Structure formats: structure tokens, C-alpha cells
């Protein structure tokens, strides 16, 4: 599978299925691992980096991942292609923007990805659509076991899996759930949720993880602590709290429908109208409007559009995707025009918008 084969595909986390998928976009678990015989990356010179990359690539290519996989040498990819992989959540911004030997191995369904030479030697990630952390853990734990039969991880009895940054040491696990919370954002209630989460040591981040601002009312909730609690316990802490946030978002949506129906319907219809007719539109504005539209579909105000299509539009209107779809590089102004054109084509007339 070539990188360009991914362009028209939807990818696992945009499937829009699974438990509570009106609010939970995706569930994700990642594990940070390092090989015992090598220094961490900030003390690894070019030749050591290459050796780590070669070693891991060989093992990853032989690993049973339950289907075909691709390995991409990220150091040889164009900037646009790297950005494209970031937008699809197959690699992190850190891997995209760093230097030297590095790579990513991912499965055809795009739900398993293994990054080589990111902050740690290896970052394993499993992603599922909807609220499904148990499947993520089952799958990632198996992959980790299989790898562990082949390599010796840096591990201590006291501190667990040793990582380059002490914030990941112990289990090396980051359990996260991507939520779409437009009603809580609209009413300002979301602040209360974040404060409550902070108190129980859960972190809130934007769509593309660490350091990104929230776009399109998407928030990632994840564990902060990695040491002193078992993986199951850390997963449990998210599994316990997420249903409350889902319930809260649903309650606020119902209250909005009940008390401000006309206003809400107007906001959603205007958002839909803008997306169907704009001649130039930024990525940020698209995300914000799509967020209203997504809620409108879930609440039944819009009936000629499906959630998987809306999910797909979120990703296809990102800068790198737009350029890959157009098969050309575009500056910001041209991108805004191309984005508006793409949205008009997909959304109006309605019958064309929802063929799939």
C-alpha cells in the first residue's frame, strides 16, 4: 500500500460507528517503549538512530498484525506527506517535525500504527472508532507481547518501562478518548468539566494532541499519571468518567433543543448553508461550522447527511488532505478557495453529498 492509496480512504477513527459514536469519535491507547541496549534519542547520534530504526523496522515487518501493513521511511517523505499522516493521526507532529532516521508502520485499516524514533524508540498506537477502550487494550497488549518476544525493552522492577521523559515512565501508557462536545462548549459548561477532570489527574487536549488548541469542539481526554497504577486501572479511570461527560453533553443538548430550539435550529442551518455556498473558507471556520452540522445531524435537524460523511469532511478539508486530493500544492488563499469548492461539491445539491 502506497501513501497515495490512503487519500480517498476514510480510516478507522472516522468510521463513525461503535458505542456512543455520536459523541465519542474514537478511543486510543499508546504505549511508549525503548530498546534496552540503546541510549534514548537525545543521546543517540545519527548512526545509532539508524541502527535503532533498522532494528525495529526488521521486527515490525515480521510482526503478525492481523493483516497487510506498510512501513514508511518518514525521513524521506515530503513535508506535505508528513502533514497528511499527522492529519490522519497515523503519526504525531513530533515525528513529522523531527530529524534523522525515523519511520512508521501501520495496518491497512489504519487502526494500528507503530512510530519508530519519536520521543521514544517505539510508540505503539491502537485506535478504534467510538467508545471502545477494551478492544484497544486487548489489541495493543498483544502487539506489545509479540514484540517483547523479539526485543529486550528497557525496564526496571521499580520504575517499569523506562522512557525518555519521566512523565511516561512506568506503564508508558496513554489512554485517550476523543470527544465531540459542541453543546458543552456552546453553553460554557465545558470549563466545569475540565476543572473536574484536572482534579482526578486527567488531561484535556485538542484534536491533534499535545499543544493543539481545541478545533471543531473536539477534545481528547487522557490519563496523566503512568506510574504506580496498573494499565487496567488507568483504563478504568477513563471508562468510569467518560460516560458522565457523554451524559452531560446529551443533557445540555436536550435542554438546548427544549429551551432554545429555534435559535439552535437557526445556528445549525446557517452553518450548513455557509458550508454549501461559501467561495472561500479557512480550515478553522470549516471545523467550527462542521461541528454545528455534526450536532445538527445527531439531533435530527439535518436529515440528508450521514455522520461518516461529516467525519470525512473534517479530515478531507484539512490543509494537507485538500492538497493531496487536488494533487497539487496550494498556498493559503488557494487552499481556502479549493476547500470551499470541495465542500460545495460534497454538500450541494443534497443528493450528491451523501452517496456513501
Amino acid at each position, binding site marked *: 500500500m502506497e501513501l497515495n492509496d490512503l487519500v480517498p480512504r476514510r480510516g478507522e477513527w472516522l468510521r463513525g460507528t461503535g458505542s456512543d459514536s455520536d459523541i465519542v469519535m474514537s478511543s486510543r491507547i499508546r504505549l511508549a517503549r*525503548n530498546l*534496552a541496549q*540503546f*541510549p*534514548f*534519542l*537525545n*543521546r543517540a547520534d545519527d548512526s545509532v538512530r539508524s541502527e535503532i530504526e533498522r532494528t525495529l523496522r526488521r521486527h515490525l515487518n515480521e510482526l503478525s498484525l492481523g493483516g497487510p501493513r506498510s512501513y514508511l521511511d518518514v525521513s524521506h517523505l515530503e513535508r506535505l506527506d508528513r502533514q497528511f499522516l499527522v492529519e490522519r493521526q497515523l503519526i504525531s507532529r513530533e515525528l513529522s517535525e523531527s530529524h534523522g532516521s525515523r519511520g512508521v508502520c501501520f495496518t491497512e485499516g489504519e487502526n494500528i500504527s507503530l512510530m519508530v524514533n519519536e*520521543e521514544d524508540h517505539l510508540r505503539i498506537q491502537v485506535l478504534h472508532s467510538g467508545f471502545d477502550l477494551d478492544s484497544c487494550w486487548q489489541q495493543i*497488549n498483544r502487539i*506489545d*507481547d509479540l514484540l*517483547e*518476544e523479539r526485543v*529486550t*525493552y*528497557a*525496564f*526496571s*522492577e*521499580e*520504575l*517499569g*518501562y*523506562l522512557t*525518555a*521523559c*519521566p*512523565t511516561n*515512565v*512506568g*506503564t508508558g*501508557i496513554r489512554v485517550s478518548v476523543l470527544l465531540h462536545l459542541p453543546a458543552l462548549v456552546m453553553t460554557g459548561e465545558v*470549563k466545569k468539566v*475540565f*476543572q473536574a477532570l*484536572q482534579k482526578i*489527574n486527567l488531561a*484535556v487536549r*485538542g484534536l491533534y494532541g*499535545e*499543544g*493543539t*488548541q481545541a478545533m471543531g469542539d473536539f477534545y481528547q481526554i487522557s490519563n*496523566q*499519571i*503512568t*506510574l*504506580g*497504577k*496498573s*494499565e487496567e486501572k488507568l483504563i478504568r479511570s477513563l471508562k468510569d468518567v467518560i460516560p458522565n461527560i457523554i451524559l452531560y453533553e446529551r443533557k445540555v443538548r436536550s435542554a438546548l433543543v427544549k429551551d432554545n430550539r429555534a435559535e439552535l435550529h437557526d445556528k445549525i442551518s446557517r452553518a450548513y448553508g455557509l458550508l454549501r455556498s461559501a467561495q472561500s473558507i479557512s480550515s478553522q471556520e470549516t471545523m467550527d461550522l462542521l461541528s454545528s452540522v455534526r450536532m445538527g445531524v445527531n439531533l435530527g435537524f439535518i436529515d440528508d447527511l450521514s455522520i461518516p460523511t461529516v467525519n470525512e469532511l473534517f479530515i478531507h478539508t484539512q490543509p494537507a488532505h485538500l492538497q493531496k486530493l487536488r494533487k497539487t500544492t496550494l498556498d493559503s488563499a488557494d487552499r481556502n478557495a479549493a476547500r470551499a469548492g470541495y465542500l460545495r461539491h460534497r454538500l450541494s445539491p443534497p443528493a450528491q453529498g451523501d452517496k456513501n
Partner: protein
Amino acid sequence: MKCDRCPKVATLHVTEIEKGQTQELHLCEECAQKYMVTASPEPVSSANPAGMSESELEELERLVCPHCKLTFREFRSQGRLGCPQCYTAFRDELVPLLENIHGDTQHVGKFPRRAPVDSRKRYELVRLRNELQAAVAEESYEQAAKLRDQIQSLEHESADAGEA
């Protein structure tokens, strides 16, 4: 957007919540790493990462990992360790940091299958005892009884192995 602490471009955006007050912080990669290590709410100058005296800084400079030669001062400024052995070399300095970040200093999660049987058992005992404590605290006595039995059988196993 400019970094709040130096002239570079901010790439990390932090929302800090303290005593119910939220505060937005926009930091460049370098300042963000310092921020994460020191978690200091005050702006710090790059020459003196944690507001330390000259002699304290020299002290950090002298702390070196024998394996990868990273100094503790370098770790303080970069936020990244140099090799797995750094955890042993800087143990005394890292323990308070880990307590601060995780509220704990003992791993209780997955254990590599290839680890020696002995250490796995010892580790399993630590884990079970922790769970027992938690179960008692939560008044889940049924669970606690189950854990107690598991602990006892594991202790017997170890004792038997010791005699043999």
C-alpha cells in the same frame, strides 16, 4: 503566536487551572520542556533554569550519568533523559520529581514476560498487596478475601522454592 517566556514562536498551548482559576500559557518547544520539568508558574530566565544559586547549578553539572554522560543540568533544561541507566544515576534527584508527577515511585503494571521468574513473583506480590489495600479501603471485602488468598498462595510458592 509568540512564546510567553522568550521571543520564539509558541508551539505549545497550556491551560493551567489553579484554585479554580484558568490561565492560558503559550510556549515554544524549549520553554515548554522546562515548564514541564520545573512546573514553575513563574517565568524563568534560560541562564538559570530553576532559580538556583551558582553553586547549586555547579552541583547539577557534576551529576553525570556514567553511561551516556548526560549531566543532570542538561536533563533539567531539555526535559529528556539520555539512556535507561540515567534513572539509576539520577535516582535521588528523580524520585521527588516522580512523586510530584505521578504521586508514586513504584511500578504496578505490565511486566515483561522475559523477566526472571523470581522478580516477576516479587513484583506480583507488590501489586497484589497494593490491590488488597485498595480493596480494604473501598470496603470490597469479597475482593479483599480473594486477593489475600492469592497473596498467601504466592508466598507459599516462594517459600517452597526457597527451601528446595
